[in-house]
């Protein structure tokens, strides 16, 4: 990089970091500099090394090799870097201001709540970050957690802010507000590093784009000087296209026969607040019904309800026309339903078990007499590992796999037996372009096999790409279901999703 050092806020030289666990270089000889007051979008597939690099920048991890210099800061001790994490790192039992106080350097041993909260309030008013400071950490939604972390960074007057996929858990409306705020922060002379998967967002927001692939810096360039196609190619290698609408399989007019899954007038409330209100839906064989919504706004609740994790106060759940009076996950699985949960690491995988043990979950009987249960298990696992294109060994602990590989593992396990009913929740969270495209292909394949698919997602593009019919869940109420393309497009879905969100 040729620009003079004095105009840079961060200069990285040959940063390298590998992990002892798998010996893979997460960052391999990365050198670039970040200009003062710019927004730099950091892009890359899963496992490209984005998060590791940002952890090194924020002082959360140390590099094995290379130097990291903050020219504007004499102490060189990461003090001016604030990071807004993708995963919440708040203490659940403390309220917001206590959480903020935790990271606040104290002049004296005594915390002065009044002083602290008045300065927090000032920042809240200044930046329009509405948040009830007395709420406990566990009560906060993803968006609110983000706000709390941002508040903390602004209170400490961080000059360099790192955002790790901040819009992933936000509604369109919230995301737009955030992007406006980021522009304002930039206007104040702060430097912003912005990790994202979304090219659109990067072009909308950033001054420059840096692309990482497999731990290496592939390119760094001003937005105006590079085409989206080139960015995409840098991210996923040659031959890739920006996934447009994937070709839709010919839409059948689904039969008027008994629906595979039917909900009738479901009402569910939890701790006095109504989560689902008089909700009814029908899902037929050979169709994908997409339900768009925000997770905190009823979508997560609907997922729990259909899988039997919670019971509605009133209403009926019917499977193939048969009423199930007391649905539990056990009975749900007895009906041969496949389920890809949004919560992959708890519900979808057992991290301290082996890959083979994770893959065998639904397979109650193993064919063949030869060998012990263990050898049969490994044989079975090998078959699924190659089918699912998972990078891993049957006897490897799942904890050592990357997030993308864990999702592939869940997918192949749930899809292998050609289920008649599939419940899929947020399937492409954190997936890169090519995995996402493959996933969409697999889901539409399941439909052509005549499976009934219920897709619950926050991702509007995903809904539009895949669904035959679409409904939107807002504030616990489900809209009318309509075929894609008629009433529903990006704008109408987005507006509907967020309409009730602005309370």
């Amino acid at each position, binding site marked *: 990089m040729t620009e003079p050092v004095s105009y840079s806020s961060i200069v990285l030289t040959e940063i390298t970091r590998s992990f002892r666990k*798998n010996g893979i270089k997460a960052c391999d000889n990365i050198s670039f500099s970040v200009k003062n007051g710019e927004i730099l979008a950091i892009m890359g597939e899963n496992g490209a090394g984005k998060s590791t690099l940002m952890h090194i920048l924020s002082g959360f991890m140390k590099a094995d090799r290379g130097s990291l210099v903050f020219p504007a800061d004499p102490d060189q001790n990461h003090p001016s870097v604030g990071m807004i994490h993708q995963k919440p790192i708040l203490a659940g039992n403390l309220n917001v201001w206590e959480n903020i106080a935790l990271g606040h350097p104290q002049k004296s041993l005594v915390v002065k709540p009044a002083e602290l909260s008045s300065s927090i309030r000032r920042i809240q008013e200044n930046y329009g970050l509405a948040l009830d400071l007395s709420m406990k950490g566990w009560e906060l939604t993803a968006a609110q957690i983000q706000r709390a972390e941002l508040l903390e960074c602004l209170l400490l007057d961080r000059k360099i802010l790192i955002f790790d996929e901040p819009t992933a858990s936000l509604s369109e409306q919230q995301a737009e507000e955030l992007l406006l705020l980021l522009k304002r922060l930039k206007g104040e002379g702060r430097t912003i590093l912005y990790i994202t998967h979304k090219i659109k967002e990067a072009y909308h927001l950033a001054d420059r784009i840096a692309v990482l692939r497999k731990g290496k810096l592939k390119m760094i360039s001003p937005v105006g000087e590079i085409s989206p196609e080139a960015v995409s190619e840098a991210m996923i290698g040659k031959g890739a296209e920006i996934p447009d609408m994937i070709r839709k399989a010919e839409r059948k007019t689904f039969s008027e026969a008994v629906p595979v899954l039917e909900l009738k007038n479901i009402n569910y409330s939890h701790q006095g607040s109504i989560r689902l209100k008089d909700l009814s839906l029908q899902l037929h064989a050979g169709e994908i019904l997409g339900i768009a919504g925000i997770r905190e706004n009823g979508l997560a609740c609907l997922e729990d309800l259909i899988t039997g994790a919670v019971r509605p106060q009133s209403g009926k759940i019917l499977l193939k026309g048969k009423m199930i009076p007391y649905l539990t996950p056990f009975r749900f*699985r007895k009906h041969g339903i496949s389920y890809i949960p949004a919560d992959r690491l708890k519900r979808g995988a057992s991290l301290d078990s082996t890959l083979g043990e994770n893959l065998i979950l639904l397979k109650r009987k193993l064919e063949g007499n030869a060998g012990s249960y263990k050898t049969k298990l490994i044989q079975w696992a090998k078959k699924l590992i190659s089918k699912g294109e998972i990078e891993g060994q049957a006897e490897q602990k799942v904890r050592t796999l990357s997030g993308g590989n864990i999702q592939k593992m869940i997918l192949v396990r749930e899809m292998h037996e050609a289920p008649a009913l599939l419940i899929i929740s947020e399937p492409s969270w954190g997936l890169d372009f090519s995995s996402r495209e493959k996933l969409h292909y697999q889901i539409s394949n399941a439909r052509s096999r005549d499976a009934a698919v219920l897709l619950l997602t926050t991702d509007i593009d995903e809904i539009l790409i895949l669904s035959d019919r679409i409904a939107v869940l807002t504030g616990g109420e489900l809209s009318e279901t309509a075929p894609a393309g008629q009433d529903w497009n990006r704008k109408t879905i987005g507006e509907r999703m967020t309409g009730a969100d602005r309370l």
Partner: protein
Amino acid sequence: MNPSEKKEFRLPPVFLILLLCIAAATGLILLLSNDPAEALYYFFPGIFSNRLYLGNFLNYSVLLSLTGLGIIIAFNAGSFNLGGEGQVYAGAICAIAAALKFPDLPSGAGIIMMTLCGTAAGALLAALSGIMKSRWQVNELISTFLLSAGITKVIDYLILGPLSNPDSYLITTGEIPLQYRLPPIIPPSHFNLSFLLVFILIPASYFYLHHSRGGYELRMIGYNREFARFGGLNLGMYDTAPLTVSGALHGLTGAIAVSGTYFAGILGFTFGLGWNGIAVAMIASRNPAYLLPAVLFFSWMTQGARVAVLQSDLSLELGNIIQGVLFLLISSQALRGLQKKRDPL
């Protein structure tokens, strides 16, 4: 080949703990004994010096293996059985009560009856906790402990009152009939044929846990309950059955202790079999394959201390102190394991 596949050779940390234990015991002896050489001799190789000590060491190992196995099975299903003491005690008292009630059966039938009664008593006690766990989400850690503490008082009462033997100078029940006693293999110690059970039950448990669908399901619940639940595994059954089996093994231990070693119910005679079962289960890191070495080590340390107390100038407390140190070191190891799981990166 994936680099993570390469197996590094590293000594399991449990060996460090065991070495520390031996070092601590040696240190204490050097500190507290006037003739450390003699005390050390009796502490370590001393148990192999005569038939009585060797037999008692082996006999204690048999009993400890059974309770340890009980803890391991529940542990693998994510259940913690803290009621071992009471379950052993209940098993023992039921075996005695049955023997005293029907004193005239032939030898084999009598021993089988006692064993079954004892096993059933332990199983019943633990099953209550299991049912409460699966029905009302009552924490089994607390319920097993409280049930055990409660039943202990009831059994104390039985030994002091209705079942007491007025002719004995100990506080004890009447002795079981002669033909119900397991004959010793290495007299004068009480080591007896019940050791065969260890060689049946440990391999059977290992096979079940690691080579069957049932064992797989059980372990998955222990690893990640949510994963198992949404995979459609039957949580209700696996919350109850492993605890019940655990209790059954404890009850069995009580019955065998009566028919092979004590022949009567002496007040509070479980000698920490329940607690020490937890310790050996932890040393064996929940795997039946490692149970036997863990048991032999633990039993060697405790019996060695007893022999040293009998034969040298060491005080009775030293044995307890060494057991305490062992316990402390092992639980610190367990805590470290828990912490590792919380590692965010």
